[in-house]
């Protein structure tokens, strides 16, 4: 350990009370940012699960739908057309219905997805049981969130008098924060017709076409080959869901502003600390300590404080996460944690850098008597 490390760590170890203040402030900021981050992730993942957790990597829509699965209206015959388009490896129908239903414990808010199981758009997150077989009528896989309402394998979920027996459980598949059930296109259409009588005369209508496209496929060219359609990647389909992009950008703005506050907190703390240690730093410089080593010591202290803030803030946030009601969409992701940890360390570093000029300006000659 060099002299800089010796100064940095000894001061933290023996001046715990003082550093507790800055570590507490940073822990609080990390806690706040992690909770906001978990809400942002919860909202994003809750809204987009149904288009992320499937085998499809692109979706076709009718032109007037603006990328919305709900608004889009296509015909079952479009599936063949998309399948024949350049760069499309496979295509399958998707029907979507946002509705109310009845589960074992009463009424439920639901999104019913009708897909050709095995084809594009099939969920990839089965955790229990099985998916419906291709063409199987009257059965469905349910999102694990429905388990809170008593939906399990062997129970039944009914929509407008049409019922489906649950044969499997999938996760991370909700749509617009609604839990989903996944069934055949025929069962989906029967449920749709039951609750939306105005659509009963459209036996071949579907909402969208899920596709598996080649990595280098030109989505515009695919859309151009079928009149009045647009094609979006699965990711873009998620972002096109109303509110998703806006929520993400609002919450991210709050998160990054809060992290900027972390940099200010560190800058202020070390500015005060350096001011207080001016006399000591002058003496150390007189003894032959290069300014760079004093600077490194301050930066090491800022990084150690930030790292402690990340650890404590994370533990508190995870503890607090257990107290958040299950119906509040929160999700603690390792990716988000790593990003926030890195940003907090960067904020600590940037904050400490502001003190370097102040340290450089300290004149070692002031260590001895007065100036004259």
């Amino acid at each position, binding site marked *: 350990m*060099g*002299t800089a490390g*010796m*100064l940095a760590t*000894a*001061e933290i*170890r*023996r*001046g715990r009370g003082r550093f507790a203040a800055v570590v507490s402030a940073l822990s609080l900021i990390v806690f706040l940012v992690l909770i906001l981050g978990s809400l942002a992730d919860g909202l994003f993942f809750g809204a987009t699960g149904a288009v992320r957790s499937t085998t499809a990597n692109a979706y076709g829509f009718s032109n007037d739908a603006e990328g919305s699965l709900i608004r889009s209206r296509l015909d079952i015959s479009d599936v063949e057309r998309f399948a024949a388009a350049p760069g499309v490896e496979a295509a399958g129908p998707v029907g979507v219905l946002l509705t109310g239903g009845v589960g074992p414990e009463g009424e439920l808010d639901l999104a019913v997805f009708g897909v050709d199981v095995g084809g594009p758009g099939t969920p990839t997150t089965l955790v229990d049981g099985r998916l419906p077989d291709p063409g199987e009528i009257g059965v469905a896989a349910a999102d694990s969130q429905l388990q809170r309402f008593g939906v399990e394998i062997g129970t039944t979920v009914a929509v407008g008098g049409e019922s489906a027996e649950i044969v499997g459980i999938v996760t991370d598949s909700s749509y617009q924060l609604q839990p989903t059930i996944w069934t055949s296109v025929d069962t989906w259409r029967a449920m749709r017709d039951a609750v939306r009588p105005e659509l009963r005369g459209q036996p071949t209508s579907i909402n969208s076409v899920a596709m598996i496209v080649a990595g280098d496929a030109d989505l515009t060219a695919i859309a151009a080959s079928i009149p009045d359609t647009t094609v979006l990647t699965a990711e873009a389909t998620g972002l096109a869901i109303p509110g998703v992009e806006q929520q993400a950008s609002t919450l991210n703005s709050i998160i990054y502003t809060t992290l900027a506050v972390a940099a200010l907190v560190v800058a202020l703390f070390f500015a005060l600390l350096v001011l207080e240690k001016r*006399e*000591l730093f002058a*003496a*150390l*410089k*007189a*003894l*032959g*300590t*290069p300014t760079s080593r004093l600077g490194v010591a301050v930066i090491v202290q800022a990084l150690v404080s930030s790292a402690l803030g990340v650890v404590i803030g994370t533990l508190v946030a995870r503890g607090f996460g257990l107290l958040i009601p299950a119906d509040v969409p929160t999700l603690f992701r390792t990716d988000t944690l790593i990003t926030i940890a890195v940003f907090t360390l960067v904020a600590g570093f940037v904050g400490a850098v502001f003190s370097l000029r102040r340290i450089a300006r300290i004149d*070692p*000659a002031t*260590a*001895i*008597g*007065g*100036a*004259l």
Partner: protein
Amino acid sequence: MTASETPDPVAQATDSAAEGTGPAPAVDAAAHPDALLQVRDVTKVYGSGHTAVTALAEATLAVEKGEFVALLGPSGSGKTTLISIIGGLLAPTSGSVTIGDTDVASLSRKQLTRFRAERVGFVFQSANLVPFLTARENLLYVAGLVGMTKSDARARADQLLGELGLTDRARNLPEQLSGGERQRVAIGRALMNDPDLVLVDEPTAALDTALGRQVVQLLRREIKDRGKTGIMVTHDLRMVEYTDRVFEILDGHLTHVESPSALGH
């Protein structure tokens, strides 16, 4: 600022004496051609034009290896300025300072930092120990600056602490030490890097007479035993009896005091 620009040191010393600022001529550098420390015609002027203040006027001084000298003077007399220039903390307006074969004024800021770490030991007025390092760590810190190996550093720190009677206090923080103990740690720290020159700034200012004497006696012993060169700035006449020679600065003019015992009167 270089030696070549300076007038004859002998003539200079005579000039200083002729101004009648001290009881005897300033020491003459020519008489000590092999002295470890040679200060020649050092002047320091603060400010410029009408506001210029001459803190030090053509000071000339030579101190031999193994000598321990006192620099006396009231506050504002220029003694701090002189010791700061000798220690490479302040650049002179003109004149030269050489320590061994190093011309201090010719060093860059970075070289001065290195020079202070390797060749100079400082004992500050209020000890100025690192408050969050133990007595032993305060010594080891200096060893870290000069790149001493860990085992050498530990051995030297323990030896110095032993000589200074601080073995039992090695693990104490400065706040747990008395004023005298703190100053003794500061002496150990100043000797840790095995410097050529030890500069001591008012070491007894915060101590009572008995403790002050003890500290200066210890300082003298360490400097003599190790063959170092020591300069102690003080305004305490009682401490000059422990030094080999005494210089006095009044209004920026340095003079050699021939009979220190007469100073009190």
